């Protein structure tokens, strides 16, 4: 029953959204191909826009993930640390050592230099 209600709500909201988009433009002609071309002040592009580009913040993102993963495991680790004692410290030490390789790699790639 709940699933049916959910489905009805979903259909109504989807239908409403589509209607809102369609209603004001129902008499508008479809944009022509020259109109859809990128505006270049009268110029035109030679190549396809599907080109590879460099995400300049990419190394920074990798570093964030490295630190974030570390913290994600350190919270539950802190809970069991008192029970497990030295064993937990060593396990976490190994994990951090592996993560540090990533941080060292990031360092080599110039992550810490803000350009």
């Amino acid at each position, binding site marked *: 029953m709940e699933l049916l209600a959910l489905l009805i709500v979903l259909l109504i909201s989807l239908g409403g959204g589509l209607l809102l988009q369609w209603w004001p433009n129902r*008499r508008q002609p479809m944009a*022509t191909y020259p*109109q859809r*071309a990128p505006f*270049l*002040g*009268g110029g*035109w592009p030679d190549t*396809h826009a599907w080109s590879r580009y*460099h995400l300049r913040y990419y190394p920074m993102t990798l570093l964030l993930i490295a630190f974030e993963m570390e913290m994600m495991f350190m919270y539950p680790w802190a809970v069991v640390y008192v029970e497990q004692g030295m064993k937990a410290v060593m396990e976490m030490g190994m994990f951090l050592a592996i993560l540090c390789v990533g941080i060292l790699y990031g360092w080599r790639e110039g992550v810490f230099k803000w350009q």
Partner: protein
Amino acid sequence: MAVSWLSRLAARGPATVFPALGMQGEEAFYQLALHPEIELVDSPRHASLLLVAGGVPPELHEPLRRVHDQLPAPFTTLWYQSEPLLELQQAGVVRVDSLEALPDALVDAHRKVLRGELGVSPRLLVDEPPNPWRGLGDDGHGGEGMMGGVPYGRPMAMPPTQDLRDGLALDTLTFRLGPFFPLWPAGLEAEVILQGDIVQQFSVQSRPFPRAMSPVFFDAWEHAMSIARLERARVQYHLRALFHALHLAGLPDLAWRALRLAEACDRQTITALEKGFKDFERCLKRRGFFALHLPTCGTLNTEHAEALGGFAARAAGIEGDARRDDEGYRRLGFSAISQQAGDTQSRWRQRLAEVAQSLTLAARAQQNDAVTATTGVVETPRGVWRDERPGDASALLEKLLPGLEWGEALATIASLDVAGVSQWARP
């Protein structure tokens, strides 16, 4: 209900106009930019009217057709001191030759076209895909995987050269920009190759239209001329250029203030202009125009600076100014100002310093009714005019812009005056 309530509502708003500037079209542009019922937009997609201001040479008719067809329906065109395209002459387009009648004609056309009372402009180009879908390859892009093939008939951007920044070679993007691109001089058309946001190559395809100067510079070349009037015209020229740079920097309120000040140059007292300019300069500094919006790049070497002349040369440390040799200016205590760096930032510092100096000179000249003493040579805001008027220098952009980021390149173009001086004075 042919006209929706949205269209009726839009008809009551300001007329959204995309100006395609031809030769001698700038005057109309500046007049319309300050009109309260007209909004000049930077993209035809935001406009309900296409204004072709000034003559467009036949070789630029095809780019004009492309811009025309990029306006969303319903729209119409107005031709100010320009001959309509042949295809549109039968469509009953509005042609206006008087600058006074132009704003009202635009507002009227905007209202009528949105209310459905005026015939809309027909599409000029064939409605077919420039490169039809071929359905080849994994994603229909014409090749295998992400690479290769000819997607939609256009080749994939592949790196032919090394990246100029950090050695990471990326795909290059080649396109032609202009001649109706609103963020650089009218008429300039260039083929640009970008790698990421770095300009890899910039080649000028057509030169910017020559700019019409105030008639006072033409008069000063022929006979003795009031220095106060000359300096007022100089201030107006630089402030109008500043309007474009501020607009490009995303500071529209300051841009309009610069333009209002420029348009007041003819009628306001010198004291009021000096006060207005000092306040405005303080505001520019406070808003970080120099520190945040002007890059310290686009440095001219001595050869380029000498070729360009005028304020650009003085900003690069070359102290050439024809006013130093004029007895009339010497009596007013004129001495040339200069900067050393020669980059985008120092060019604007130079221009603003010259505006302040021109206002001081105009105030002194007005007290003494000072006139120029030499003829056959005049220092225009674009450079010295001796035997020949300052000519086009757009070719230097090909050497200056590669290696700059796209935003820096546009700011550099805005800081330079590469268009030559027209043989016709401004009306």
